[in-house]
């Protein structure tokens, strides 16, 4: 052993090493980088949800990544989806969309727009986007039919004609979808799977994708944006899982805007003069999904009985400002919404009558039922899950509530052959378009299964009928008077409420338009 090593030398050396290790990554500015020294920097957005790691817009349905796409990508139109006018359309890459016939839609494009990589935006990009996105192997299945059912013509660089006659569905289905499908570059798409499309975002939107560094997505204002360079110099979009951490970051000035506030957090910062709060009735409804392909909820009478056992006003009380009353399967900001007259209200007598009719008087004879919910992603799921469990139990449903963290819950969420785990599952569904079929057809048509596993020929026929209506007006009428009431009479899922999307932001960002799907228009100049 080296006899020169003494305790004193060791302690001195250890202390020096510790200090050296601590200062190994010192930022020379740290003495002046106080918590509030953030002005003039890019907008920092803290997201509650992580991204997928694949930038191809057709490869995911993840809301946080859709939000990033909202900054970077261009859309033919945007739909503000306000409660007073859910069908409002604002033209962006398109200047006009018109139905030539029931199966032919003509889209006129804006001239002089460029992608972030410099490529001029043309009709070929819309054609390539539609044909690629509609391929049956794309994970995000937003299109009304596969590629072979579409014929896309491009008579010139600024005109696209979508012909759906091969698929037998009307072309007007693309009107609402136009606001939801980010337009990709034909050059990127041509490079094929694993090419630039999956490596980075390249759009025509107000912000340009710069890099992904760990959990931070870095965007910068695009000089060539057709409405002029945004006032915000850039956006750092970061995943921060914990809502308290997000809130602290906003309060100390590190973050510019945070999402998915808990109602209590809203109360605590409402009086803060430096913070603005934005609440918007979202496109997301929260549902109690029934596993319809296995007993006992393969019997619609039992599903209705359960729906009548639940007093949704109590759930809204628990949610406070985070919930909005729902009397339909889609959000009020979606096309075709109407308060359904036959939507099941809290009615214990009806519940008992239906239980008896189904052969389970007072719930006797029912098997043990599992109700699966998550904690940590949606607000108050555990709290109102306990209330629902208590209300169902009160009417005789033997229910056990299983509360899982999001990964385990997500693993049990979807339908599987035989019905999937549990008997009831809590989950929200959010699509940034007024298009109601992104909810209705996705969940209640037999070809989908998704969560409920429902197979019902009558509902299928009604969904096909509303989709095939020759005009939007007729479609709206069928939805309101036939399809939606029919689904309510069979209750494959109980829509509990519509989520209210709550954002908090620095006061100087007040006025930023936040769409009901959580994406935002940061292209405007700041006040």
């Amino acid at each position, binding site marked *: *052993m*080296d006899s020169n*090593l*003494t*305790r*004193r030398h*060791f302690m001195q050396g250890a*202390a020096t090493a*510790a*200090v050296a290790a*601590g200062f*190994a*990554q*010192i*930022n020379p500015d*740290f*003495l002046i*980088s*106080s*918590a*509030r020294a953030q002005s003039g920097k890019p907008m920092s957005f803290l997201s509650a949800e992580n991204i*997928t*790691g*694949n*930038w*191809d817009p057709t*490869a*995911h349905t*993840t809301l*946080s990544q859709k939000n990033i796409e909202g900054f970077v990508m261009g859309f033919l139109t945007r739909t503000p989806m306000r409660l007073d006018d859910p069908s409002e359309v604002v033209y962006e890459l398109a200047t006009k969309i018109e139905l030539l016939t029931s199966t032919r839609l003509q889209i006129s494009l804006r001239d002089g727009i460029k992608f972030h990589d410099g490529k001029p935006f043309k009709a070929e990009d819309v054609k390539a986007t539609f044909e690629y996105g509609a391929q049956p*192997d794309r*994970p995000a299945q937003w299109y009304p039919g596969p590629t072979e059912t579409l014929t896309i013509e491009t008579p010139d660089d600024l005109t696209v004609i979508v012909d759906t006659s091969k698929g037998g569905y009307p072309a007007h289905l693309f009107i609402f979808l136009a606001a939801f499908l980010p337009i990709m570059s034909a050059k990127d798409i041509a490079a094929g*799977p*694993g090419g630039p*499309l*999956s*490596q980075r975002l390249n759009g025509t939107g107000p912000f340009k994708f710069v890099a*992904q*560094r*760990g*959990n931070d997505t870095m965007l910068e204002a695009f000089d060539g944006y057709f409405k002029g360079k945004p006032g915000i110099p850039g956006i750092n979009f970061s*995943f*921060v*899982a914990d809502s*308290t*951490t997000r809130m*602290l*970051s906003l309060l*100390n*000035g*590190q973050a510019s805007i945070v999402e998915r506030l808990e109602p209590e957090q809203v109360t605590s910062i409402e009086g803060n003069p430096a913070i603005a709060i934005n609440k918007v009735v979202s496109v997301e409804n929260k549902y109690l999904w029934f596993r319809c392909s296995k007993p006992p909820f393969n019997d619609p009478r039992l599903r209705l009985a359960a729906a009548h056992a639940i007093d949704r006003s109590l759930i809204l009380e628990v949610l406070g400002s985070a919930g909005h009353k729902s009397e339909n399967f889609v959000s009020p900001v979606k096309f075709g919404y109407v308060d359904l007259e036959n939507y099941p209200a809290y009615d214990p007598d009806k519940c008992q009558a239906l239980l008896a009719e189904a052969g389970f008087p007072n719930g006797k004879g029912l098997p043990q039922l599992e109700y699966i919910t998550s904690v940590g992603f949606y607000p108050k799921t555990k709290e109102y899950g306990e209330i629902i469990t208590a209300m169902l139990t009160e009417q005789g449903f033997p229910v056990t509530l299983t509360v899982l963290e*999001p*990964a*385990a819950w*997500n*693993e049990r*969420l*979807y339908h*599987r052959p035989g019905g999937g785990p549990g008997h009831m599952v809590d989950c929200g569904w959010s699509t940034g378009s007024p298009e109601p079929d992104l909810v209705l057809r996705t969940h209640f048509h037999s070809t989908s299964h*998704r969560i409920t596993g429902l197979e019902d020929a009558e509902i299928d026929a009604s969904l096909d009928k509303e989709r095939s209506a020759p005009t939007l007006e007729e479609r709206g009428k069928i939805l309101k008077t036939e399809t939606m009431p029919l689904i309510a009479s069979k209750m494959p899922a109980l829509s509990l409420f519509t989520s209210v999307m709550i954002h908090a932001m620095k006061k100087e960002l007040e006025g930023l338009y936040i769409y009901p799907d959580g994406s935002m228009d940061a292209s405007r100049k700041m006040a």
Partner: protein
Amino acid sequence: MFVLAFLARRLVQGLVIVFLVSLLIFTLLRVVPGDPVRLMAGGMAPEALIEQIATSMGLRDPILVQFGRYMGNVVQGDLGQSFVRPANGAATGGSSFNDATRGERAKVADLIFETLPMTLQLAAVTLVIALVFSTIIGVAGGLAPGRWPDKVAFYVSSIFISLPNFWLGIVLALLFSVHLGWLPAIGYNGFAYTILPAIVLAVELSPVLIRTLVSSVSSQMGQSYVSVGKVRGLGHARIVANHALRNASVPLLNLLGVQFSSLLGGVIIVEFIFDYPGLGLLTINAVLQRDFPLIQGIAIVTSAIFVVINIVVDLVATTIDPRLEY
């Protein structure tokens, strides 16, 4: 010769410990609820695809077969690839596994060794803060047993040990970051971001150090060599600094080895609260996403660090006090 024999013996013991930890973690991960293949493939993936992926990845083989294959790669320095994280390191939700456009997955070793320095920096700053604070309080208490410095040491350590770190982290962030604006709190963009989480961890660490110092200093001050020193005319300060503290530091040194290792566990909550991009945050995200290879890799690396630190501590303690035998 002694050193070589010591090192050889302890390294072999360390390898056994790392092996057993790996086996334990590997087995536990495969019996907890949550099928990672379904998370990778997406919830809507059909059962046939799930089974196809699981079989092709060897996840349906017996656990011991899987473990043998895994350790075979580990000894070659390959900790595998993350199930869900792309090469850019972002914490991700699952995209569809069979999607041909899916990006390349990150190597577990890259993810760990990118975040480990951040945690080591946090642990080092924590140790400095905890040692300085504990030495001041603990030595003063040890030099005045039964009097007010001793009581202060007792009350401070009692209060500190009662403070939950998640609560303290939020309170300190509110005070120093939100209200006073002195320090940043969330994320990492320079050294200043380490200070608040380090204070929280130091508060967690200090009570044990304070109590150890109070007890060992007080014990040393009662030894006969202290009285003899006075008779020989040595000043009080010299007796304390040169003799009592030197002897009192041996139990502290041993304790530090254990505490430094436990710090690596304590950082999980603190890094999550402060969104500090270290090994703790990586661990919690890996667990939430059922990212088996990443969890296993973290377990192996942290247990190896634990073993190495304890070997070093024992080696140094033996050097300082040759009467000690390990």
